[in-house]
């Protein structure tokens, strides 16, 4: 049994340093999709064909090899327990698709969990790099460097005209998906969010709520990413996302200031109430927890609250997810038990800061 260190901490090591604009941007992510020539895509691959791909790709990043990003460890999905897979998904280290549907699926994780390389997901190879705060350029630079390591020994499926060939037509060309995860409570409260999100859609970017259902974003956390992968260079895609994100950061900042000047008492009350409820409630469902944690996060930035730290909040966002709760308090919790343990966890974490 491999060492499952990733189940021990809710917050990956890479998330512990803040990064720029960390009061609004939680994290930045880049993933690139690649496939090997003359192998059917994972969708059609038989188990043995998928294992062949795994045998070709996994040794490229040797566990002892010095990549500059710490040592890597390989986890095969069919050797992991359901709960461990859930934890990997909740920490955004693998996709739900790799966890549930893959044949011969595996992930190469580095020590601080900032690089996760998925094998036999929708494409043979998906290189994902995560950075705290607003560092989408840094994330791209690392991802492309890791891509170069693979490319030195792997013949990629590449076409002069279409670029990197991917299983899904929405990824063809650069195979690049870059995203920033942003906390936008003031834009939601001031009802500007829909206008801004539809504007974002018009410039080839897409927005979705994270941890949420449908278009409703739990905890006011939104993920903004590029939609177009063909006909633009990687630099253009990253720059486009970068400049739109900067504008959204500005809008959110202005909206926060306006909340403070126009309705200081109301906003202070809301934040203090949420902090109080999180610190003392006996039952807490996920939706309420996300919303109240969002209020507390806003309170920190506005100087209304002095504690807890952003890092504790980031940790709670992951720890209050169902998989992680079961990881802490034992599996097969009923949903009522889940809500009870979630409240307990919140009380214990926030209560000590009084």
């Amino acid at each position, binding site marked *: 049994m491999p060492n499952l260190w990733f189940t021990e901490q809710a917050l990956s090591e890479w998330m512990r340093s803040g990064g720029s604009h960390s009061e609004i941007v939680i994290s930045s992510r880049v993933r690139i999709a690649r*496939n090997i020539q*003359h*192998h*059917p*895509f994972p*969708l*059609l691959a038989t188990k043995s064909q998928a294992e062949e791909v795994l045998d070709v790709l996994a040794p490229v990043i040797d566990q002892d090899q010095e990549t500059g990003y710490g040592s890597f460890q390989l986890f095969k999905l069919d050797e992991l327990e359901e709960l461990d897979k*859930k934890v990997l*998904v909740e920490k955004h280290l693998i996709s*739900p*698709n790799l966890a*549930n549907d893959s044949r011969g699926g595996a992930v190469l994780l580095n020590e601080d969990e900032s690089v996760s390389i998925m094998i036999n997901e*929708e494409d043979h190879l998906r290189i994902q790099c995560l950075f705290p705060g607003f560092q989408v350029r840094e994330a791209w630079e690392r991802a*492309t460097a890791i*891509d*170069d390591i693979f*490319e*030195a020994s792997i*013949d*990629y*499926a*590449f*076409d*002069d*005209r*279409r*670029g*990197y*060939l*991917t*299983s*899904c*037509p*929405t990824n*063809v*060309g*650069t195979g*690049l998906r870059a995203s920033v995860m942003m906390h936008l409570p003031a834009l939601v409260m001031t009802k500007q969010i829909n206008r801004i999100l539809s504007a974002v*859609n*018009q410039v*080839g970017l897409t927005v*979705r*709520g*994270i*941890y*949420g*259902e*449908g*278009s409703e974003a739990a905890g006011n956390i939104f993920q903004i990413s590029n*939609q*177009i*992968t*063909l*006909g*633009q*260079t*990687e630099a253009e*895609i990253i720059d486009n996302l970068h400049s739109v994100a900067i504008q959204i950061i500005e809008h959110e900042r202005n909206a926060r200031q306006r909340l403070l000047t126009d309705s200081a008492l109301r906003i202070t009350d809301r934040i203090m109430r949420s902090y109080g409820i999180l610190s003392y409630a006996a039952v807490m469902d996920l939706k309420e927890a996300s919303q109240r944690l969002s209020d507390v996060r806003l309170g920190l930035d506005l100087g209304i609250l002095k504690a807890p730290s952003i890092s504790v909040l980031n940790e709670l966002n992951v720890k209050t997810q*169902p*998989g992680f709760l079961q990881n802490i308090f034992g599996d097969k919790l009923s949903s009522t038990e889940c809500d009870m343990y979630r409240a307990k966890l919140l009380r214990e974490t926030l209560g000590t800061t009084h």
Partner: protein
Amino acid sequence: MVCQECGVRPATLHFTKIVNGEKTEFHICESCAREKGELIPGTSGGFSIHSLLSGLLDLEAAGKGKSDAASTVQDVRCEECGMTYGQFSKLGRFGCSSCYKYFDKGLDPLFKRVHGSTSHVGKIPKRAGTRIQFRRQIDELKEQLQQAIVQEEFERAAEIRDQIRKLEKEIAQE
């Protein structure tokens, strides 16, 4: 609004996509999305891009008008993995990298719709790269050549022509 799939339940999932000002909308109810196996329990909901794409691809065949014309398009088969265009348009995903070659005819309109563009301008694998980089340079030079001719700058045109010849020779030698 009623779900586009079942036509019975109200649509609760809405998708809008705008590429180059062209708008495509899709409205579906949650249970239809679930039925399609697109909702993954315990994770953020929504139905996958693949079913949305297959809508676009069906549109493609429908746009061709006559049903027999559409059915021959559907029957085009990738010789490497055996996937047909019909299957591709249902799944919204290619079976292997050769599908791109066999389905090439249908792809320009699809890529135009999804990406607003049909060809790659980004990163190139280093090892396969020199040939492609030369080819890109040649394409650029050819455009410049045309401009030079239009502007009657024949000396510059001759220079560009020589550069193109030199690059073409280098490709041939490789």
